[in-house]
């Protein structure tokens, strides 16, 4: 009967229904019937490829894809791309977005082929392809319609490559050049001269000077400018922005050492519509002129002045004039105390995010005031606020029903009672309790029983809690995908085995758990199939049986830390050859592994490794052939 109802639905109705589904449900959907599968194939617009073998098949199966993510597809290289180009069944003409982050094995030739294949390409991400340089940039520049480009940490990219991109893709709207350390003023100048449509520019960490800012100021449509930690830029440079870039809405000058408040004042004066001002760790003191000028910013939503000396009175003045603020960062502002915070809570009732990390004088009174007035609060960072106790957390539990993120790392005052109060924030997604030594199973039990939406939990060095607490967590927080229980010394196999219930777990840190053995690890490997990141450093008692299970079941593992583990030659070889998606491996201080063991293990996975940490002496003991291949495939080796 149900079949007949389903067959009565026309295809466009099915498509409509399909659009309401979450990605996991869509997976089930396509298994229902051929009809449903067809709808899925035609409606799907984005895909993340995990194994390069299936790339051509999947591309031909889903003809309407617009977004293709190849960032976690370790074996992708130029050959795959050129084979793809020869395959007629593959249609890539609709692809608009291409994510090649960390795809270090794709080089200039592959990029050029891809750019030619995908005529409609608008967004490309090649961030963290550390070997990319001018040739690769020239390959990308073939995609003339490009609008967004992310090139973070393309370490060899120089002005010449940037010039190729700028001249090839003149319609660029967004470009991120973070950590492209070779870029100089000349490149930025050319970029600003040729790409007049630029709305977002990230030049963080570049060694550019004031000349670049002068060029940037000439961009008529620039809205977002990120220039974190540009050590050569000073106030004279920022002065250019006062009368330039008229549509600027967001500026980030975090950690620009030579920038002072006076230039920020000039920027504020020139841009009354500024919405986001991020000036963490570059302002030393909030001055009167700054307070007077910031009054004019009626639309200011974000203000980060972490590390500045802000007195309570100036915080009051500040918040009373900028009542639209939703995100305030005053971490490490040691002068901030309850009076200032209460004023802030009174004035900014729309507050969504508040960063009070390392504000040592903030007490429960301030937290209560914030919780009571700012009912929309979603994120609260209270790291190292030692005066906060259960009282403050009580009001958070009572009032902050929308709280999603709470950082209580290193807050001595947090105890089991406090956790009980916090557990009332039922929408909590991320909770950090690292270094809270006063919590035990009882408190963790409250979290596990009530915070069912929790996605991330950090219990780093919470030595007080043990197997029962972990069992409660594993039972209650089913959607947890990130769990940090490093150095929780009480934990044993009994507790660890419970983790297998967390099916969605992808990031697990078990560092320094001396009591767990192969059995515990095997249970995790069997249960948590989605595990992507696993830290087993200093888990000295895990024997080969655990690693063999890991090698067999955790096929999605992408990053693994095996430092100081007692893994044997064979187990390591098996891990490295079987874990076909592993990209990032730390293999330091493996006492039981011989040079040959390393050689074999690395040979088995050298075509997919992107990052590798080894003991320095191995540099001379591994065959140069292997090292060359690793290098050629874009693997970066850190010699410890």
């Amino acid at each position: 009967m149900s079949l007949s109802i389903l067959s009565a639905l026309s295809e466009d109705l099915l498509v409509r229904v399909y659009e309401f589904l979450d990605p996991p449900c869509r997976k089930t959907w396509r298994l229902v019937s051929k009809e449903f599968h067809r709808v899925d194939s035609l409606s799907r617009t984005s895909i993340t490829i995990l194994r390069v073998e299936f790339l051509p098949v999947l591309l031909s199966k889903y003809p309407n894809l617009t977004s293709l993510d190849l960032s976690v597809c370790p074996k992708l290289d130029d050959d795959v791309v050129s084979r793809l180009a020869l395959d007629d069944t593959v249609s890539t003409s609709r692809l608009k977005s291409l994510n090649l982050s960390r795809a270090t094995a794709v080089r200039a030739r592959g990029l050029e082929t891809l750019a030619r294949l995908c005529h409609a390409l608008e967004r490309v991400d090649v961030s963290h392809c550390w070997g990319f340089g001018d040739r690769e940039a020239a390959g990308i520049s073939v995609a003339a319609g490009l609008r967004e480009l992310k090139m973070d940490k393309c370490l060899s990219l120089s002005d010449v490559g940037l010039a190729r991109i700028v001249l090839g893709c003149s319609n660029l709207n967004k470009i991120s050049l973070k950590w492209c350390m070779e870029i100089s003023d000349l490149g930025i100048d050319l970029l600003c001269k040729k790409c007049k449509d630029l709305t977002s520019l990230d030049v963080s960490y570049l060694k550019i000077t004031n000349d670049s800012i002068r060029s940037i100021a000439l961009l008529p449509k620039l809205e977002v400018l990120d220039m974190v930690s540009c050590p050569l830029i000073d106030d004279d440079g920022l002065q250019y922005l006062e009368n330039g870039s008229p549509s600027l809405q967001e500026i980030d000058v975090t950690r620009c050492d030579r920038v002072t408040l006076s230039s920020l004042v000039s920027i504020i004066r020139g841009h009354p519509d500024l919405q986001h001002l991020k000036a963490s760790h570059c302002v030393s003191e909030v001055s009167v002129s700054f307070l007077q000028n910031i009054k004019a910013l009626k639309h200011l939503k974000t203000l980060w002045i972490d590390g500045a000396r802000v007195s309570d009175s100036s915080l009051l003045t500040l918040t009373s004039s900028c009542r639209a603020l939703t995100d305030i960062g005053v971490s490490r502002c040691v002068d901030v105390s309850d009076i200032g915070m209460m004023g802030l809570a009174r004035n900014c009732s729309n507050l969504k995010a508040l960063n009070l990390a390392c504000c040592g004088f903030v007490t429960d009174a301030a937290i209560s005031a914030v919780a009571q007035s700012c009912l929309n609060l979603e994120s609260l960072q209270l790291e190292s606020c030692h005066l906060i106790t259960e009282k403050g957390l009580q009001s958070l539990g009572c009032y902050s029903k929308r709280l999603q993120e709470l950082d209580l790392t290193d807050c001595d005052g947090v105890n089991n009672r406090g956790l009980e109060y916090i557990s009332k924030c039922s929408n909590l997604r991320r909770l950090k309790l690292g270094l809270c030594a006063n919590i035990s199973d009882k408190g963790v039990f409250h979290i596990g029983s009530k915070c069912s939406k929790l996605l991330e939990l950090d219990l780093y060095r919470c030595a007080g809690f043990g197997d029962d607490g972990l069992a409660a967590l594993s039972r209650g927080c089913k959607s947890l995908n990130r769990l940090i229980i490093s150095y929780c010394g009480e934990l044993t196999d009994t507790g660890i085995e419970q983790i297998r219930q967390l099916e969605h777990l992808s990031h697990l840190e078990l560092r320094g758990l001396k009591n767990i053995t192969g059995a515990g690890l095997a249970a995790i490997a069997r249960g948590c199939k989605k595990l992507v990141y696993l830290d087993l450093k200093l888990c000295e008692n895990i024997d080969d049986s655990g690693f063999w299970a890991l090698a067999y079941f955790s096929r999605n593992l992408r990053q693994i830390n095996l430092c100081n583990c007692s893994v044997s030659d064979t187990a390591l070889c098996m891990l490295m050859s079987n874990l076909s998606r592993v990209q990032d491996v730390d293999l330091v201080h493996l006492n039981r592994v011989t040079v040959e063991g390393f050689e074999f293990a690395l040979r088995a996975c050298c075509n997919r490794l992107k990052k590798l940490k080894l003991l320095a002496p191995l540099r001379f003991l591994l065959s140069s052939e292997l090292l060359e291949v690793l290098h050629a495939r874009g693997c970066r080796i850190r010699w410890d």
Partner: protein
Amino acid sequence: METEDDLCQNNWGNSSSSKLREPVCFTSQHKWEDASILDYEMGMEEEPALQVFDHMKASSGQEHNNNNNGGQVNVDFLQGVRAQAWDPRTMLSNLSFMEEKIHELQDLVHLIVGGGRQDQQQQQHITTDLTSIIIQLISTAGSLLPSVKHNMSTAPGSALFPYPREANNLASQTLNNNSNNNLAQDFDLPKPTIVQERESHVVEEHEMKDEDDVEEGENLPPGSYEILQLEKEEILAPHTHFCTICGKGFKRDANLRMHMRGHGDEYKTPAALAKPNKEAVPGSEPTLIKRYSCPFPGCKRNKDHKKFQPLKTILCVKNHYKRTHCDKSFTCSRCHTKKFSVIADLKTHEKHCGKNKWLCSCGTTFSRKDKLFGHITLFQGHTPAIPLEESKPSAQRGSSACENNTGMVGFNLGSANQESPQPGFMDGKMSFEESFSPLCFDTCNFGGFHEFPRPMFDDSESSFQMLISSACGFSPRNGGGGSVSNTSL
């Protein structure tokens, strides 16, 4: 004859009209003197004589405008001279006009003499009038030029003003003297004899320069300089200065003078050590500048060439001759491709050879990046080219042949099945020995693993699967289930 006239006409007309477009008004005496100084230094100037000359013409015309009604006529007349350069009738009318003017002037001077008072203003009037007459005279003489120059080789001493340059000097000198009494004397002075002084280097037929020849070099009118031509052997000789005592040769005379000090005290006097320069006594007549001709027949720098362009100095001659007419025997030791015949050129090249050449897609190279970027900004469609040499190792499977990997220490252990790792190394590092336990491959049968029987970098996933299933007892995984489930959603 006809064509030459035309050429001449064109030249005059062109040069003057272009200059006259912006008439500079020299009104003060001081300015005139400046002009004359400029004139003496003409050797250095780019387009010397004519300019000064034209200034004079222009200003003289204006002065006349102020003085009398005949001013306009005067200018017209000047142009007339230029337009119909070689017309006896025009010449006649010119002469009669001048005669008239001189009479006028004579009357004026008579008047002054009769009146007994010397007015400053009147004196100035006379001076300017005289100047204009002189200039007219020169122009008239200049129009005779083509006909004169034929006779020059035969009768070089003809007392004419063959070229504007001399005329110009004369004019300025006259002005310097600033007295009409000296005029006659000055007229006797002209130095056509200079032409005579040239010994063997007979100036033969020059042709007037064509307009398209003005692009480079100085704009010296032909004949305003002396032309020297060295022989090939002379040019290529390593030394040009020889010691009269011991015969040692030197490239520079300064070096010779330094050398001479060793031959006795008489060579140590300041006078002996001083540069044996042109004994330039100020106020003496300027010597005719020297220009050089290349001995290579057919060369543009050869005086027989139609569009002859003289070389300025002996050094120019040497470099020109070596660069253009000799083998390029010096090869760059860096790139081994570029060749030079002048060592200095090689040295200049070697300084920059191998450094980053900034190359544009249009083929233009730049020594500096900012210049390249300026070029790119300026020209649509030009992009910086990426040099080929620094190509990176391609990320190909089995591309182990890539040798240019930096940071790879060539410490090859051979293949993996070499059993003992560098013994000496292990001895040196005790801590290291702890990290790597001795071989323990007995636990599991690696089969043919030692030899790596399968292709070295085979990326088949199941390479160890058999091992696992046999060793651990896990059932082999269903490989087919991965196709869709492996894609995260």
